[in-house]
């Protein structure tokens, strides 16, 4: 027999849990993290990515996420025997993690690429350099974004 008190308690519980499940957005942070990991794995083929040798230069505080100047330079002699093959850029919080893949070679003279990117939200930006010897090096920079790019509906 359900007393009036029990009934009220149970119905309020059902109401709260029903509302909570209806309002819980999909776990976007986890989806983005998985997408980033998949994107990096696609580039590296599962090889180990070591921190170092890469310098990712971008402002730590971004006023406008729609245009963020970015420069990636890699320490490399850029000779035929030892050079950077590609520089890949990723962001953590964008709807899709890819930003740009630049293919360079010994004729570049210096491994240095600049561009302007969009960043949707405060998070990490990752640069990965692919060397001619098959190793991968990276630099991760956390940025704070005040005006976000890409999304007007607040789905971050």
């Amino acid at each position, binding site marked *: 027999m359900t007393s009036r008190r029990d009934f009220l308690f149970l119905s309020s519980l059902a109401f709260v849990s029903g509302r909570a499940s209806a309002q819980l957005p999909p776990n976007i942070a986890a989806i983005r993290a998985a997408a980033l990991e998949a994107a990096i794995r696609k580039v590296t083929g599962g090889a180990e990515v070591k921190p170092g040798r890469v310098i990712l230069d971008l402002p730590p505080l971004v006023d406008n996420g729609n245009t963020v100047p970015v420069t990636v330079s890699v320490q490399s002699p850029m000779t035929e025997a030892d050079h950077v093959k590609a520089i890949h850029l990723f962001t953590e919080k964008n*709807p899709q993690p*890819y930003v740009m893949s630049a293919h360079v070679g010994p004729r*570049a003279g210096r491994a240095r*690429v600049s561009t302007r990117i969009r960043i949707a939200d405060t998070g990490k930006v990752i640069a990965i350099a692919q060397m001619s010897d098959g190793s991968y090096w990276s630099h991760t920079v956390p940025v704070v974004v005040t005006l976000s790019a*890409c999304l007007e509906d607040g789905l971050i």
Partner: protein
Amino acid sequence: MAGRVVVNVPASAKRGEVIEIRTLAGHVMENGFRRTERGELIPRDIITRFVCLYNGVEIFSADLYSAVAANPLIAFTTVATESGKLEFRWTGDNGYSATESASISVT
């Protein structure tokens, strides 16, 4: 559809010198995640690939995605090996394509 593009290459350089090349393409780079007031998704319209040839040899290329800002600027370096022509090619969604060339004299 051809777009407006600008390239900046030094007119002359010493042999073996590392020169910086700066390119800019006029393009909205619509990222495909924005919606109109009526809630319809605006289709993606971006430049997806950029290639630079130095006397016919590819020296730099880039794959671009939605996260590259509008009017994509790409700056990179190359070794001035010989006098000749640098060709730049951008291609993208909806048949976008643009080309530009610049000549350099190497002494």
